[in-house]
Each structure stands twice: as structure tokens, then as C-alpha cells.
């Protein structure tokens, strides 16, 4: 029973990260129509920028928390700029194209970012994770060590999700974003600045992806690929929310985190969680799929 509780906490912290990554995907997809396969890669790149500041450029005499703070700020600023850059340099020009074409373009972004990162930071070496909480602060439940980092992740994920929710719910710009995500055509008739909403979505999406990336580093084998591949878990969570609902997406993320963690009680396999994600995707699509060809028949 206690073991179950420990695994639940691990699963929830993983799920929190999935939720964050998925939130960005849904946000960008709803407001700009781009399903961003490069979301994991974007988070990965920003995370490495933070990592660089944390391990490469911070002065050894600084107290740890200053390095951490600087690193996180650097990563987030970079993420926001990258989101804006992608919107203005690429996706603004293909707004009217088919969603599939836009998705393929994000695959180009994925490949370029992934290689650029492995060029700069090397792909196959072990990278020390970024700890937001002291690594030593652990406690054990039924022989399973739980780091304070797990708790930090869960809290941060929930705070961010609620913060984003509050931003969308209570601010004027958040209302505009929700309007655009419901119907871009109607929104432009209402005088909502659709272009600016798209740019802000890319910025916010990239930001939460960076947060997800920074938070996940203590839990995985931290290298360029494994963070890029976070995309599939994020997509699974996003599909649980139907690529529409943010609360369902967050729930989906946590659910997926638990589903991927519990089997590790019995199965020791790095790849098995991917199978869980795929099964979740398939199950969701079967449940949610409309009858027949109703999509094409309008």
C-alpha cells in the first residue's frame, strides 16, 4: 500500500510535466491551427540553454539559488523569444495552408532543433540535471526514495496550470485567446487581434514547454533525444483533452503519468511507458472518433 503511494507521487510528478507540455500543444493548436510536433524539441532546447547557464556560465562562488534562478530565467526568456521567432519567421506565412502541411513544417523544426542541440551540447554524453530543490532532500516511503524535487514538480505544474487557467479566464487578453481558439473567423469579426493572439500563444506554449523540460531533467536520462521524445506523451495527454479542453488535458497528463508509472512496479523497461502512451492514444481516438466519415461530410 505504501509502495503504491510512493509510485503515485512519482507518477503524479511525471504527469504534471506531461500536463504542462500538453497545455502548450493545445494552446498553439487551438489558436493557430498548428499541431506542433516540435514542442518537445522546443522545450529541450530551452532547457539546455538553462543547463548551460547553470553548469557552464554561473560563477562557482555564487550561492546555488542564484545560479538556479538565473538559469531558469535564461531558459524561459530564450523559450519566449524562440516561440515568437517561430511564429513570425515561419508560421505567420503558412496560416492559410492545410493543417497537415503545417504539422510537417513542425517536423522540419523538430529535426533542425534536435540536431542543433546535439551539435552544441553533444547527444551521447550524460548531462547533470537541473535541481530546483536540493537533491539531498529525500525521504522514503516503503523503500522508494522520493525527492523533494518530485514535490516541487507537482506543485509547479499545478500552479502553472491554474495560473494559465486564471490568465485565460480573468484577463481581457485571455478572453481574446479563448475567443480565437473557439473560432478564429468569428474572432476577427469581433475585432479580436488574431495575429497577436497567435504570437502570444506561441510564446506561452514555448514557455510552458521550457518549464516542463527544466522540471523533468532529474527524472529522466537527460539528453537531447529523450526530451524531444516527450512529445508523444504530451500528444497523448492533449488527445485526452480532445485537443480542446485545457482542464481535461491537465487531468489527462496526470492520468498518463500514473499509467506509465504503475507498470514499472512489475516491469523494468525503459521503453514500456511509450507503449502505454500509444495505447492511451489509440483508446482515446477510438472513443472520441465520430461515426463513419462524418468529418469529411461536414
Amino acid at each position: 500500500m505504501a509502495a503504491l503511494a510512493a509510485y503515485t507521487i512519482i507518477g503524479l510528478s511525471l504527469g504534471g510535466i506531461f500536463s504542462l507540455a500538453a497545455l502548450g500543444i493545445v494552446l498553439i493548436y487551438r489558436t493557430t491551427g498548428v499541431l506542433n510536433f516540435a514542442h518537445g524539441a522546443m522545450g529541450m532546447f530551452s532547457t539546455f540553454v538553462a543547463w548551460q547557464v547553470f553548469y557552464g556560465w554561473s560563477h562557482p562562488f555564487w550561492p546555488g539559488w542564484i545560479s538556479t534562478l538565473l538559469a531558469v530565467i535564461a531558459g524561459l526568456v530564450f523559450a519566449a523569444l524562440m516561440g515568437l521567432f517561430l511564429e513570425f519567421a515561419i508560421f505567420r506565412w503558412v496560416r492559410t495552408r492545410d493543417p497537415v502541411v503545417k504539422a510537417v513544417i513542425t517536423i522540419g523544426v523538430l529535426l533542425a532543433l534536435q540536431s542543433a542541440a546535439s551539435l552544441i551540447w553533444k547527444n551521447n554524453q550524460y548531462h547533470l540535471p537541473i535541481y530546483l530543490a536540493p537533491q539531498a532532500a529525500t525521504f522514503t516511503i516503503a523503500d522508494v526514495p522520493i525527492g523533494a524535487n518530485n514535490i516541487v514538480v507537482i506543485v509547479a505544474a499545478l500552479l502553472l496550470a491554474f495560473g494559465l487557467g486564471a490568465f485565460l479566464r480573468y484577463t481581457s487578453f485571455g478572453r481574446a485567446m479563448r475567443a480565437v481558439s473557439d473560432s478564429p473567423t468569428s474572432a476577427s469579426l469581433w475585432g479580436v487581434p488574431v495575429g497577436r493572439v497567435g504570437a502570444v500563444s506561441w510564446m506561452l506554449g514555448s514557455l510552458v514547454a521550457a518549464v516542463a523540460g527544466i522540471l523533468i531533467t532529474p527524472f529522466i536520462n537527460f539528453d537531447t533525444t529523450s526530451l524531444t521524445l516527450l512529445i508523444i506523451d504530451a500528444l497523448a495527454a492533449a488527445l485526452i483533452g480532445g485537443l480542446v479542453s485545457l482542464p481535461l488535458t491537465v487531468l489527462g497528463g496526470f492520468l498518463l503519468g500514473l499509467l506509465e508509472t504503475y507498470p514499472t512496479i512489475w516491469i523494468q523497461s525503459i521503453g514500456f511507458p511509450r507503449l502505454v502512451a500509444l495505447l492511451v492514444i489509440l483508446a482515446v481516438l477510438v472513443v472520441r472518433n465520430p461515426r463513419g466519415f462524418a468529418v469529411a461530410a461536414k
Partner: protein
Amino acid sequence: MTMLRVRDMTVRFGGIVALDGISLDLNRGEILGLIGPNGAGKTTLFNCISGVIHPDRGSIFFEGHSLVYAPPHVRARFGIARTFQNLQLWGSMTVEENLVVPMDALGRRNTFSDALYLPFSTYAERASRERARAILHVLELDRHARTLAADLPAGIQRRVEIARALAMRPRLLLLDEPAAGLDAQETARLAELLHAVRQRFHVSMLLVDHDMSLVLRVCDYVYVLDFGKLLARGQPSAIRSDPKVIAAYLGEESKQSTGETTTVVAAPKQAAPLLEVKQVAAGYGGLEVIRDVSLQVRPGEVVACIGANGAGKTTTLRAISGMIHPRRGRVMFAGIEVTGRTAERISKLGLIHIPEGRGLFPRLTVEDTLRLVSNTAGHEVDITPAFQLFPKLRERRRQLVGTLSGGEQQMVAMARAILSRPRLVMIDEMSQGLAPSVVRQLFEIIRVFRDEGIAVLLVEQFVESALDVADRAYVFEHGSIVLSGAAVDLRSDRKLVAGSYLGTAVETPAMAAADGNGHRVDPALMEIVSVRVPAKVKRALEQRAEAEGRPTGAVAIELLEKVDRQ
């Protein structure tokens, strides 16, 4: 002999009942018409018959086979072919190849023998191509046989769709809006074509179209759908005079006394126009929906656009508000040229467009939706005036717009228009799908707009109510304006207006002249004689006129008056 038997067909999409227990019979050799306002469920019924969607309840029998569980390609093999409202030709293939595909698909072909170019495949291919060319010849499409389907204009693509359906050697042909986007002459030619097709290919047809003139001219029997229910059925002539049908299309005749409407004083004529549309053409993709549309709205004036579905009213509004960009012509608003500007910028000049379907955001609450007005106003707006006007919305302020009834949604859209303090509001199909009592209430709001000095451009299917409230009106037909004038004048000419809906509108003068049968031309009768009645009816009229020795027009007038009295 019954060929197609549909029983108790019911389809629900979420909470919306698209089809509600429809039953229908089609006899062999018959052309059956299916009409009804937008959203009546016609295309849904087509999709059920061709197997594109599965009904929640009900059964379909075709020549004695039950089709409920048959996938689309099996139905095609039984002999059911269809065309599509939003053209679904295979654009990257030539017209000829488009015809060969269904022929091959129905035969027994082998993928590997095809890839190897075995004689079996090449001979079969040659035979198919020859048959395809024969069909193209009958439909006068030979010229385009080697053109890529995507490169053809929409009118010809519609003909190719019919040709492709015929290539399956169908026994039943489902035609979904074959006349959409065609002008009056092309529609007339289409009617002839359909008659020719029935004779040459021995097919039965089920025809959906908004163009009532086509349906009433071509069909032997007509079903009328409204809100997914069967409203009426009968011979075309009976349908035309069925008060229920006329009400569904035009709305109830208003009971208001004319005295009240005369109090409506038209806006001063000398005022500079607020909105000026000059010879605008616009469309979608290969389809040009409106051509040469010019209209004006003066400050504080209420102007109605009326005409059948597909006549180009909605497209005109879209071209004005910037949802689509005009291909030719200019749009001036408040003295500024807005042609080609984005909808976002135009809305900030004080032009509000409430599109068909109301253009709301289903996942926002009423309150949030109204607060969005700050985007056009440029500052936070006090939304309480909206609740004073629509007390019902105050109760529902925390509810998601998507969960409101249609009438309440329209109230939200109108409330937003008021809060924005615009100079012009354009409302598209305000009363679509709403109960008459709600519609009356909404028309009252339009009077409020007028009292506030806000100009209104109205697209409306309930012509009577629209003309009651409007100062002036434009009548659209086949993508251009055929008539305009003071609303009071048009109101008194109900026959004429009804014509634009029920397929008896003013014909082009050329065709009217060609119709002369030797009788003395009476200018008063000309208008009536020149109505575009189905060929059959026309022939009947002429026969009767000859028998009685009177002008055809006189007979027509007598009959139409009879219709009017009913």
C-alpha cells in the same frame, strides 16, 4: 414500383436532431425533389442513403436489399451514385480518368496485373475509356476530357460530377445541389440536361436544391423538409401553393396594419451613404458567387437583402466585412475605402457583422462574450445595458454560450452589437431556426437599432417581417441584384418577391421576348407571363390559353391569384 424505401430515419449530432423520423418512397424512373430551408436535413438524408453516415434509427431498402449496414462502396455496387454539394472531384486526374475510376472500381480488377500492364488490364482500361468518352459526349463535355478536373470552372465541375456518377451505370442518382453557383441560364440548361439524362440513361433521381425553379421544373414529386421533419409532400404545383411551405420559406404573412409602417420615415435621401458597395465580385476558390453587386446604405437606414438561398446575399455581406476579399469592385465605409482590409480592422471602424450561425464562441460564458466588445471599442465596456435590453441574458450570464437556445444566442449577438455602438450592423439570417415568437422579439430589436441611429443591413429569409422593418430592399438572384426599391413598394408586390424564392422571379427580358406566342403584348401582363414557371406548367398554361382564346398572361394571373388567396 418502389425502388428506394426509407423508413423512420433518425440522425442526431450531439444534441441536435438532424433528421427526425423521415420516411420516403421513390418509384422507379421518378425524379424526386427534396427541398427545405438551410439546416433542414437534406444533405444528412443523402449521406444516410449513400452510406456516408449511419443513422441512429431507421431502415433503408433499395430494390429489396436492406442497406443499413452496407458500406458506401457496396451501395455503389447496388447502383446508387451521388454528386456532392461541395464538389468532390478527384482534382489531380483528368475528367476522363474521373469517369474511369468508378467503372474500374465496380469491375473485378487486380492491382498487380495493373502494375505489370498485363493485357487483361490494358484491354479493360481501353474499354472503360471508350465508355467514358461516350458519356462525356452526351453531356457535352468532350472538350474537357483531358483537362485536369481541378482546373475546370465550378459550373463544369458540377456537370463532370453528374457524368462521373453516370459512369457507374447507376439505377438511382442522388444529386446534391447541382445548381449551386449557376446563373439563371445555366440552371435552365441543367434542367434540360437532367431530363435528357433520365431519358438516355434510365435512372431515377433524388434531387436536392435550393433553386426552387429547378426542383419544381424537373421533379415529378417533391418532399419538403424543415427542422429534420417532413413538412409536406406532393406534386410540384401543389407544393408551390402549399401555405405551410410558403411559410417555411417566407415566414408568416404579417398581420400588422400598413398604417404603422407608414410612420417609418425613410432616412433623408440626401445624406451621404454610410456604406457603398460598387460592382463587387467575390467567391470561393473556383466559384464566383456574386458578380457586379452594387448597393448603398445611408446612415440610420434599415436595408433588407432578400432572395433565394445561394443567391449571393451571404457572400455579399462577407465581402463587405472582410471575411473574404472582393475580387473586383470597391467597398467604401464611412468615406474610407475598406476593400481588402482584414475583418479585424473593418470591425473597429464601427461595422458589426453578425454572420450566419451568429459567429459566437460556444465555450465562452455570456458575460465573457459581451466583455469581448472591448476589442472593438478599445476600452473596457460596461455590459449592464445589454442586460437591461435582454433581461433573460442576465439570468444566464454565467452560462456557456454553446448551451443557450438559438434565440438566446441571437440575443447575445445583438446585445454585443448594441454595446459596440456601431454605425452599421449587418445581420445574416437572424431568424434561422428560431420560433416565430422569438423572431418577432428580434425584429423589435432592429427597431431599437434604428431608434439609436444605427444603420442595419439585413439578410433574411422571412421576407415579410424583413420588409416590415426595412426602409429599402434589394432582391438577389443568381449572384446579382435583380430588383431594388422602397420596402413598402416591394411589400405590395408579394407575388414578385415570392417568385424569387419559389422559382418564379422576373426572367431576363430576352427570354421573355422569346416566349411570345403571337398575342398582343400587355405591359401589365408581361411581368406575369415572364415568370419562370416549370416547362410543364408553362405548356399547360399555353394549352389552356389557346383553348379559351385568351392571352397566356391572363390565365397565369388568374391562377396566381388563386394561389395567393389560399
